[in-house]
């Protein structure tokens, strides 16, 4: 086929080599240290290592995080002062990647990372949490509602073994304490574009215990397999979730009905559609319905549709006219008789 790579005319192109990479790469000296209030942190990446021995740079933008965004505070109430905001994170970032990075540049220890493309966890108040932030004042005394994970909302099996971040994702790295955070920010400033000598490659230094699935072909093969779940699991998953859904609907319906009969605290009763059978129809309604039916039955009947009907109708009319004429004639004759009788009587 003409689309085969061997038959394509690629004379205007060159396969990636160190020269080409050097000509298009963006070296740290060309990137400003501060950009709109964020500090630039160059990170070496070995993704093009097979084409060029020189490293390529990826640039992160870091600044202290100002947690005014309500959902984040709700999810992580005690991160004030110990979190950094990181923009333009690589697509394959994980907590482990960032942990390794900050360890390498001499920053503090990361407790957790909040990625902007991941749903925020529900607010937790477990014992571990309290242990970790023992010296902080709790602002609220009531614990948050426990997460409601029923069969109805049970998650589907994951289709991908590793989630990648879409472009434009940002992250908030939460450090164990304020000092660690400050130390990290300092390390970032020191290793910025004016001093890009850090020999750390993105993705290295992650502990062996943290198994991060490989990208590329194996990932897609794994995805293809995970698209077809075990039928038994699927059956159970569907049965459970639909049953739970039905039960919830039933419970809600019952609750609604119950409320229909009970006045609330102000004395009002919510009006709902009743499930009682309708009362038998009254005599008027029956008469009305009969009338309608009669009308409907007559609808299809046309008295003068056929020719013979029209002829008969005409005959009837003629007969009627004739009889009227006969009547009129009789009346006239009678009147005449009476008049004659009268005149005769008068003459007599």
């Amino acid at each position: 086929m003409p689309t085969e790579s061997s038959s394509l005319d690629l004379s205007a192109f060159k396969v990636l080599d160190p020269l080409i990479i050097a000509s298009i790469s963006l070296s740290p000296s060309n990137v400003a240290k501060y950009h709109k209030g964020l500090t630039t942190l160059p990170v070496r990446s070995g993704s093009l290592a097979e084409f060029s021995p020189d490293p390529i740079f990826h640039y992160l933008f870091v600044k202290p995080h100002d947690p005014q965004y309500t959902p984040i505070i709700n999810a992580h109430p005690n991160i004030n002062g110990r979190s950094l905001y990181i923009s333009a994170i690589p697509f394959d970032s994980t907590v482990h990647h960032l942990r390794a990075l900050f360890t390498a540049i001499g920053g503090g220890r990361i407790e957790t990372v909040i990625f902007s493309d991941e749903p925020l966890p529900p607010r937790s108040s477990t014992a571990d949490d309290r242990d970790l932030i023992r010296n902080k004042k709790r602002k609220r005394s009531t614990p948050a509602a426990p997460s409601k994970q029923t069969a109805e909302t049970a998650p589907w099996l994951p289709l991908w073994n590793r989630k990648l971040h879409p472009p434009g994702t940002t992250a908030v790295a939460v450090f164990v304490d304020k000092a660690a955070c400050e130390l990290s920010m300092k390390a970032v400033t020191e290793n910025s574009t004016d001093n890009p000598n850090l020999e750390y490659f993105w993705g290295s230094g992650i502990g062996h215990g943290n198994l991060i699935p490989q990208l590329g072909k194996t990932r897609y093969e794994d995805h293809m397999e995970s698209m077809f779940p075990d039928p038994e699991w699927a059956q159970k998953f569907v049965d459970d979730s639909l049953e739970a859904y039905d039960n919830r609907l039933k419970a809600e319906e019952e609750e609604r009905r119950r409320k229909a009969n009970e006045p609330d605290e102000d004395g009002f009763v919510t009006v709902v559609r009743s499930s009682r059978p309708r009362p038998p129809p009254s005599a008027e309604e029956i008469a009305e319905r009969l009338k309608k039916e009669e009308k409907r039955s007559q609808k299809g009947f046309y008295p003068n549709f056929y020719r013979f009907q029209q002829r008969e109708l005409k005959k009837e009319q003629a007969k009627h006219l004739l009889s009227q004429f006969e009547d009129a004639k009789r009346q006239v004759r009678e009147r005449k008789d009476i008049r004659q009788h009268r005149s005769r009587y008068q003459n007599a």
Partner: protein
Amino acid sequence: MVHVLVSKVNTLAPYFKSRMAHDLSISQSRNSKKRKIFDSHGFKDAPNPPLSPLRRSYQKEVADLIRLQKCSAQEMSQVTQAVENVKRVLIDIKETTFVSIRDAEAMFHSHGVHIPYPECGDCIRDGGVCLSSPTRVEAEWGLGHKMLPKSEHGDISVDLFIEIPSATFHPKDYLEYRYHRKRIIYLSYILLALKNTQKTSDYSYLADFMDGDEFRPIILVDCPSSRCKIRLIPAISLSIFPLDKLSPNTCRADRQNDVPTPMYNSSIIDDAYHLVALDALQKYAVSNEGFKEALILGRVWLFRLGFSSHLLDGGFGEKEWALLQCHLVETATTPSRYSTSADAFQTFKSVLNLIANTSIHSQFNISILHQRHIDFNVFSKMSRWSSQALIHHSRAATSLDKLGIPSRAQVHSIFENPLYHISDIAMSFPIDSLQIGEMLPKTVKRWNLKYHINEYCYNLFSKGLGDRFKMMIFSTPRPHSKQLKDALDTPPQNPDVYGLTIFITLDEKMCRRVLDYGPEVQDTAKTADFREFWEDKAELRRFKDGRVMETVRWDSNSPPTEQILSFLHRKLTASFQTTEKPAYQGLESGIYLANPPLLRPADDSHETTVSEFEMIANAIRQVKGFPLGFRKISGVSPSLSFTSVEPPVPCSRYLGPPLEGELELESSSMWPVDPEQRSRTELGLLLKLRAELEATGNFLTVRVGIASASRLHSMSCFLDLLTKRQFYFRFRLRHTLEILPKKAGVNLPADPSLGIPNVGFMHPNKRSSLRASTIQRCYQYQYFSSSVRILKQWFRSHHLACFFPGDILELFIAGVFSQYSPAEIPGSTYCGFRRAMARISHWDWRRTPLEVEILRHFTGDERAHILKAFGTYQHASPNNEACLSVVLPGEDGEVDWIRHLIPRLVAIRMTQLARETHNRLSSTPTPFQAAFIPDMSFFDFVITLKRKSDPHESVGKYSNLSAVPKKFGPLPLYQEFVAELKVQTEEYILLFPSEDSLTIGGLWKAKNEPNIPDLQDSANLAVKCGISNKTAILGLIIELGLGLVERIHVKVSD
């Protein structure tokens, strides 16, 4: 309301104008200013034109067209000056007397005047000849009306008729070339005078023939200063010769042979009628504006079809058209019909009607129309092929009237249609005129050899092709006019070898017939003739009904037409010493049998797939105990509607991309409202169906799969089936809840704020009905399916296919196969493709929607509404995206819209590539494959992926055919990779994956610095994170495609 309509209709006119100008390569600088005003948005504020009834709107277009044809005042004054100079010289010429013709010739030779003329025997009765100044010198009618034809280089050509005085001729001079010899003498006499006069001596003089007729030389005066060429055409008065003795079936030259000399006879008659025709034309052109305009329309129409007065161009041009128009006016039964106010387009159509209905001469097989009941046939110069082609075109154009198409649409499709010229097969081969001349009769080959060779070839080809063709056009290179050199004594010679191209329009219903029937065996004369023609191909066959007939049977493996053409070429060149292979354009075998083939032959693989699909559909319908009934089970994949580029193949080793289908369920109120619960319910239903189908044991594997439908959490489920013949199908559920309200989808979006692009480019209901109509068209037209496939292949080769859904490409082809246009239904895949290319390259998607008239044609009102609606919608589309709109006539009087948003760059690329392909294929003889070689230099970088197995290559010797393939092949993996890569890099690069995803072209997007809002909403800090760090992006590609990407090529200039 009416106001708006009118203004919208008027906005089309400038566009139409520009398109016509583009096609006719006529400069339009004069109108450009005006057009700009009309195009701009400021036109809205301009004063509204006075209300005119809509029905007259097409006249405006006609008027625009005519205005473009007129010459400027400056050009006209220069031409008039030159003509006046020549005229004055001719009138003042002195009288000369010669004792004999030979004397005269010798005298002119001695003065360096020699007009080349072939030797015509020594049968001149030597008598004295007296030459005097012409009786009349008249310029052609167009000079007074600023309507002179222009050549490609912008030179204006003007005819000057010179009446030779009657005293020059003897009444018997019409015999034996005497008239022609004296005509030459007279021309030499004029030429000498022109050369010797100071005023005209700086002009250059060329020798040419009147309309290529070698009987009648003329002088071409080239005036370089005024950029015009004056043709000096000798004429005679009507009364000199008895013209009734010159009927076509009489012999007036070479009388010893006694063979009729129709061309010789008509050459004399033609000269006698020059001035008569000119007088008539001038009379009508002055009194009747519509008459003049109709002449221009005729000129444009003939020019576009390639006809001209030249013998080799068909012998029917503007002059003959004008004579027909005069004939119409003279013979009109009602005087008012062609009165002064007559409409130009109506007159134009009347002439077409006249051509379409002229009688055919029984002997010469050409049309005849005798003007004023005398022996002057307007069609006398036409050859058989041109006569047939002209009648065919006229009938096609007049048939639009019978279909009830409004006049405006008719003007549009007759004058703007780019599909006219494209024939089904073009065949070109070198002709050795000396060798082929041997086959022609002696009397014929002396004059106009090329014309007679064309006639000979036409006879041969028309007999061989029989009813398989509708028309043939012969294209021969026209000889150039020669410089008149002093005393040059070489007679005009025909070039020995020249190229002949035959454009054949096939009858698409007949051209695939494998068996040709000849005469019955009893008819000995005809049988002998048949056997002589078909040689060893002729076979005697007995049929079931007892008849014994001569037949020719063609090999069913390759198209019969191609076999016939190569047979005929062999037959034609059998006696030649050396023969070259003819060059074809439009062969089916060039598409399927090339190496590598452009398309793989589909054979019956589509049918097999459809039957497998039907089997599954039946199995699903027979499932008992399923909670909902199946309303419809339909195929979505193009393989199921015969339009997939690759013919579907069974999965032998790997699972390939599945053939998609849809299960439509009966409506039910029990579906949960929550989309999450709905997808879980779907999963439950599919699991139930899976269990039932697995129990039947008819399938190798039955699986239920899950995929993420969108970036949101809702999942979509599907059912995968592998049949026993290893066809892999995938079915998705479609229930009534998904069906959107009709108004929101395909039909005119009343309110652009509805956000139509989010809904999808087509309503789901409409999509299924379109698919059904596509399948129907595949059965109806022989070449529909292959045309769609080749168009899709073209889009694929140029890495554009992923931006265009198959339905839109099918509509491009459906528009070409429409019967509501004067162009024929394509009779070859090549023709279907070329026409689609022509259509796409002429489509300005910024200004008009593509009208695809299937089912019915649009009414005038509908067109106005379409334009209005299009204007409203176009403003809503964003800047960097282009909206391709296609309109279809709907069923119940409504208009269906299909709108497809693609990156503007891609739309521009499509038009640009289509234009390139169209021009390349129509201008030079390029191999068809060249149109499919992508121009990779368009991309900034190219990613090549590792090539694994090809599903079409033959299975290895020892592979286990009965094993059930379980793993997916590389193609689905590649598709997943490309889809993810697109999401990851959409801000920085535009990807052009080829359909097999083996190469991916990439373009860096211009830096638009996307602003990503901070997590902190109060600060609202915009962070620039899109520095185009190209190496980082290339690194991303390598990392994401680990094990899939082979290498990345970057453009050297980078």
